[in-house]
C-alpha cells in the first residue's frame, strides 16, 4: 500500500501545534504512552490506538479525506479493528481473490455476496442495511434473514470491499465473503454453541425446579428457616450458570441494541431476567420476599428452545439454495493437447476458463457451463429444473454446470465459468427473491419494534403503579409484563415461513425471482396463458402417418428421415426425431428447395418430400389423390413423401401439448383460479389447444396491445392476474400482470425479467406453486393473528397481576414455539408431498 508512505508514526518534532488531547478519528482521549499519527490533508493528526490509525489510513488511502471535513459526529472507535483484521480484509480487495464471490458490472460497479455473523433478529438486518447504505459508494444492500447473506452493490472507485467489511465490524457484526463451505462451518459452530447453552439451561433448570417444589411445599406446610435459606441458596447457585452462560446471547443482543440506540426483543428479555434474578438475590440474602429462580431458568430454557427450532427452520428453508450453491464440484479434469495424445490434468474448478476442454466421466458433475464437443450421454438437470428424467445430449448441445452426467463420458468446451454460469444466475435470482420482503413482513417488523418500546414503557408505568398500591407485588408483576409479551412471534416467524416457502417453490420447479410476489400469487384469481406455446411444446411433433403405398410406416419414416437428415427446418427435424434411427438408407444428390421441400435419390429413384404444393409441382402423382390425401385426418401441418410417379405417405405434424398441460389446468381450476388463453394464433388453432386442455375462455388473433387491453379490463374488474408467457416476446404484457411467470429453459434464464420462472416443462409446478403460496400466506396470517391476540390478552392480564412470572415464562415461550412450529409445517408438507413421487 502506498498510503504507508503518507503515515508517520511517533515523530515528535513534527507534532501538531494544537493541544490535541483526543483522538482525531474517534474522539476518545489520547493515551499518554502512545503517539500515533496519520497525515490527513497535510496535517499529522493524533490517533488513540492502532485500530483508529488503521481506519484513518484506509479512509485516506481510499481518497475519503473529505469525510473528516464533513463529518458531524465521531465515528465508532476503531479499537476493535485490530491491524490483523485490517490486513485480512484488505486481502479481499485483490481482484484474484474477489473472482469467486464478486461480480463485475458496467464500469466500476461490483456486486458481492457476503455472510454476516451475529444477526439475531430482523432488526439487526435493518441496522446493517441502513449502516451500509450510508457508506459513500454503496449503491444497494439487501440482506437475507434466512441465510444471513448480504448482496451488496458498490462503486469500486469510491469504496473498497475491505472497507465494507470493516464498516460491518465497526457496528458489532462480522462479515465474510460468502463461501458455501465457510457458511456450513459457521452454521455448525452456531448450532453447537446453542445446543450447549440449551442443555446447560435444561439440566440445571430441572434441579432448580425440584428445589422450588420443595420450597413451595415448605411455604404451604411450614419449613425451618435454616432449611429454607439453604434451599434458596442452592437454587441461586444453580441458577447462576444459566444466567451467566446460557442467557449470554440475550445480553449481547440487548447491549448491541442499546448501543445502536434502538430497542429489539432482547431488551425486555434481558430486563426480565435480570430484574427477576436481582429480586431473588435480595430475597435470598435478606430471607424475606419471594424467589423467582425457577421462572428465570424456565424462561431462558424455553426461549433458547424456540430459538433452536427457529435456527433449524431457517436452515431447512435455505437448504435448496444451499444445495445449489454446493452443486459445482471442486475439481475438474482438464484436457491438454500433448503431441498426439491428450493429457488429463486434474485442476480446481476455479482455475477453469472459457475455452478449456474438460472430460466429464459418467456419474460426474458438470463443472461449468459449456458445449459438448464429443460424446453421447444423458444428463440429469434435476437440481436446476426440478425435472427428474435425464435428458439426452449429443455433440453440440449445451451443458449446464451442476447437472450430472449419467451414462457415458463427455468432452466439453467450457463457455462460462464462475459468476457467469447459469447456476450462479439462478442463485442470484433466488437470493434477490429471499432478500425482498413482502409488504406483510415489513409491516410486522415495524410493528414489532414499536411494540417492544411500548412494552418497556408499560412495564415502567405498571411498576410505578404497583409500587404505590402494593410494594411487595411490584417485582413479580413487572417481571411478568416484561416476560409474557412476545414480539418474537410478530417479527420472527414470518421470515421463517417465507424461507420455507421459497425452498418448497424451488424444489417444485418454480423459481421465485422476486420475493414480494408470493402473496400476489396466493391471491391471484385469474391465470392467463399468453401463448399456445406455453401449453404446447412450441415445436412441431409427428402426430400421424398415413401410408399411401405398399411400404410400411417404418420404412416410409426412415426414407423421410434420410431425405430430411441435413435439414434445419423444424418440420424436418421433427420427422428425424420421430424416426429416431441410427442407420438410415443412403441418399445422394440432395437438393433443398427452401421453404418448400427436398429432393434426393434413394434406391435408384428420385424422391420428394415437402408441402403438398411442392409435391404437386414436382411429382407426376395424381393431383386429386394428393388433394384427397391432404384433407383427410387430423388438423395440423402436412408433409407429403412421394417419388416421381406416386404418393407414398402423408405425415401430419402438430404442435404437441405438454404432457401435463391438461392435468395442470385442471388442478388450477380446482384451486379456484379462472384459466384464460390469450394468443396471437388463429382462433381454430387456439380453440383446438384450449379444448384439449380444458380452457373455456379463449381470446385468439390478439396483438400485444389487445392482450394488454384484455388484461387491464380484467384488472379493472378487480381480478388479480398471473400471466404465463415466454418472458421475452411479450414483455409489456407480462409486466402489466400482477404476477408474471416466464416459461424458460435453464440456459436462457438471464433474459427473463419475470417475477417467477418455470424451470422445466412441467406445468404442474404452477398449480403446486400457487398452492404453496396460498399456504404460506395462510400460515403467516395465522401466526400474526395469534401473536396479536395472545399479546392483547396476556399484557393486560399480567399488568393486573393475574400472571405469575413462571406462567409468563411458559406462555411467552409456548407462543413463539407455536408460531415457529406452525411455519415449519410448510417444509413438512412439502416432504410428505414429494416423497411418494421421489
Amino acid at each position, binding site marked *: 500500500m502506498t498510503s504507508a508512505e503518507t503515515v508517520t508514526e511517533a515523530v515528535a518534532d513534527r507534532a501538531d501545534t494544537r493541544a490535541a488531547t483526543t483522538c482525531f478519528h474517534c474522539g476518545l482521549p489520547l493515551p499518554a504512552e502512545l503517539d500515533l499519527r496519520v497525515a490527513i490533508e497535510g496535517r499529522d493528526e493524533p490517533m488513540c490506538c492502532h485500530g483508529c490509525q488503521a481506519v484513518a489510513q484506509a479512509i485516506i488511502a481510499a481518497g475519503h479525506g473529505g469525510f473528516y471535513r464533513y463529518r458531524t459526529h465521531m465515528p465508532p472507535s476503531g479499537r476493535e479493528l485490530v491491524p490483523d483484521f485490517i490486513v485480512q480484509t484488505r486481502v479481499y480487495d485483490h481482484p484474484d481473490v474477489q473472482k469467486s464471490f464478486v461480480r463485475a458490472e458496467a464500469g466500476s460497479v461490483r456486486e458481492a455476496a457476503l455472510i454476516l455473523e451475529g444477526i439475531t433478529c430482523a432488526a439487526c438486518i435493518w441496522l446493517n442495511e441502513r449502516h451500509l447504505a450510508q457508506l459513500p459508494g454503496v449503491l444497494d444492500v439487501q440482506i437475507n434473514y434466512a441465510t444471513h447473506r448480504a448482496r451488496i452493490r458498490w462503486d469500486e472507485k469510491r469504496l473498497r470491499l475491505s472497507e465494507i467489511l470493516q464498516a460491518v465490524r465497526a457496528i458489532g457484526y462480522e462479515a465474510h465473503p460468502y463461501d458455501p463451505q465457510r457458511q456450513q462451518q459457521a452454521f455448525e459452530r452456531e448450532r*453447537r454453541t446453542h*445446543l450447549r447453552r440449551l*442443555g*446447560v439451561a435444561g*439440566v*440445571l433448570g430441572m*434441579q432448580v425446579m425440584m428445589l422450588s417444589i420443595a420450597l413451595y411445599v415448605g411455604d404451604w406446610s411450614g419449613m425451618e428457616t435454616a*432449611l429454607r435459606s439453604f434451599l434458596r441458596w*442452592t437454587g441461586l447457585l*444453580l441458577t447462576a450458570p444459566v444466567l451467566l452462560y446460557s442467557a449470554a446471547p440475550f445480553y449481547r443482543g440487548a447491549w448491541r441494541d442499546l448501543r445502536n440506540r434502538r430497542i429489539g426483543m432482547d431488551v425486555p428479555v434481558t430486563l426480565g431476567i435480570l430484574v427477576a434474578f436481582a429480586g431473588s438475590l435480595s430475597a435470598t440474602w435478606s430471607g424475606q420476599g419471594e424467589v423467582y429462580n425457577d421462572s428465570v431458568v424456565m424462561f431462558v430454557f424455553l426461549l433458547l428452545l424456540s430459538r433452536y427450532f427457529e435456527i433449524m427452520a431457517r436452515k431447512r428453508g435455505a437448504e435448496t439454495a444451499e444445495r445449489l450453491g454446493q452443486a459445482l464440484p471442486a475439481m475438474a479434469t482438464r484436457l491438454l493437447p500433448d503431441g498426439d495424445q491428450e493429457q488429463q490434468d486434474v485442476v480446481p474448478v476455479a482455475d477453469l476458463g472459457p475455452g478449456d476442454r474438460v472430460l466429464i466421466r459418467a456419474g460426474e458433475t458438470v463443472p461449468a457451463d459449456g458445449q459438448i464437443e464429443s460424446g453421447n450421454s444423458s444428463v440429469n438437470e434435476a437440481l436446476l429444473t426440478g425435472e427428474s428424467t435425464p435428458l439426452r445430449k449429443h455433440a453440440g448441445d449445451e451443458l449446464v454446470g451442476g447437472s450430472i452426467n449419467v451414462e457415458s463420458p463427455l468432452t466439453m468446451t467450457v463457455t462460462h465459468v464462475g459468476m457467469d454460469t447459469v447456476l450462479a444466475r439462478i442463485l442470484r435470482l433466488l437470493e434477490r427473491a429471499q432478500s425482498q420482503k413482502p409488504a406483510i413482513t415489513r409491516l410486522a417488523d415495524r410493528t414489532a419494534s414499536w411494540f417492544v418500546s411500548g412494552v418497556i414503557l408499560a412495564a415502567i408505568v405498571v411498576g410505578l403503579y404497583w409500587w404505590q398500591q402494593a410494594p411487595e407485588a411490584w417485582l413479580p408483576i413487572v417481571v411478568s409484563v416484561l416476560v409474557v409479551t412476545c414480539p418474537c412471534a410478530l417479527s420472527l416467524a414470518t421470515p421463517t415461513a417465507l424461507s420455507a416457502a421459497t425452498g418448497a417453490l424451488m424444489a417444485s420447479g418454480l423459481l421465485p425471482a422476486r420475493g414480494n410476489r408470493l402473496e400476489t400469487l396466493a391471491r391471484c384469481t385469474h391465470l392467463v396463458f399468453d401463448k399456445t406455446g406455453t401449453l404446447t411444446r412450441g415445436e412441431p411433433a409427428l402426430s400421424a402417418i398415413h401410408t399411401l403405398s405398399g411400404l410400411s410406416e417404418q420404412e416410409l419414416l426412415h426414407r423421410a428421415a434420410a431425405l430430411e437428415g441435413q435439414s434445419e427446418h423444424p418440420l424436418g427435424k421433427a420427422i428425424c426425431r420421430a424416426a429416431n434411427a441410427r442407420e438410415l438408407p443412403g441418399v445422394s444428390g440432395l437438393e433443398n428447395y427452401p421453404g418448400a421441400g427436398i429432393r434426393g435419390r434413394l434406391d435408384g429413384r428420385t424422391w420428394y418430400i415437402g408441402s403438398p404444393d411442392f409435391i404437386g409441382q414436382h411429382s407426376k402423382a395424381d393431383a386429386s389423390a394428393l388433394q384427397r390425401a391432404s384433407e383427410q385426418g387430423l388438423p395440423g401441418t402436412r408433409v407429403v413423401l412421394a417419388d416421381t410417379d406416386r404418393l407414398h405417405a402423408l405425415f401430419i405434424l402438430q404442435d404437441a401439448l405438454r404432457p401435463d398441460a391438461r392435468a395442470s389446468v385442471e388442478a388450477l381450476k380446482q384451486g379456484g383460479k379462472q384459466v384464460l388463453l390469450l394468443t396471437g394464433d388463429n382462433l381454430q388453432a387456439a380453440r383446438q389447444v384450449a379444448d384439449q386442455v380444458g380452457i373455456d375462455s379463449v381470446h385468439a388473433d390478439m396483438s400485444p396491445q389487445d392482450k394488454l387491453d384484455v388484461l387491464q379490463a380484467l384488472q379493472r374488474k378487480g381480478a388479480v392476474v398471473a400471466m404465463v408467457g415466454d418472458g421475452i416476446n411479450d414483455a409489456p404484457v407480462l409486466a402489466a400482470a400482477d404476477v408474471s411467470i416466464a416459461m424458460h429453459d435453464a440456459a436462457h434464464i438471464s433474459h427473463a425479467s419475470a417475477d417467477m420462472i418455470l424451470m422445466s416443462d412441467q406445468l404442474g409446478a404452477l398449480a403446486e406453486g400457487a398452492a404453496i403460496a396460498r399456504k404460506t400466506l395462510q400460515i403467516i396470517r395465522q401466526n400474526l393473528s395469534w401473536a396479536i391476540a395472545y399479546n392483547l390478552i396476556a399484557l393486560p392480564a399480567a399488568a393486573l397481576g393475574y400472571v405469575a412470572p413462571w406462567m409468563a415464562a411458559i406462555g411467552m415461550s409456548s407462543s413463539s414455539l407455536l408460531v415457529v412450529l406452525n411455519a415449519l409445517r410448510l417444509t413438512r408438507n412439502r416432504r410428505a408431498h414429494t416423497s411418494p413421487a421421489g
Partner: protein
Amino acid sequence: MEIIYLLIPVSLLLVGLMVWVFLWAVRSGQFDDLEGPAHRILMDDDSPTIEPPDEEEKNKE
C-alpha cells in the same frame, strides 16, 4: 432432615457430572446428526447383497 444437607451437595456434584457429560457429548459431535443414525441402523451389514464376514472367513479355511 439433617441428611438433606448432605444429599443436596451430593446431587450438586451429580448435576456437575451431568453437565460435563453433556458438554462432552456436544463437543464430540453426538448431536450433529440426529436423523442419520436412525437410518443407518436399517442399513445393516446383514443385507443379502453383502457377504457376512464370518462366511468369508469360512471360505478362507
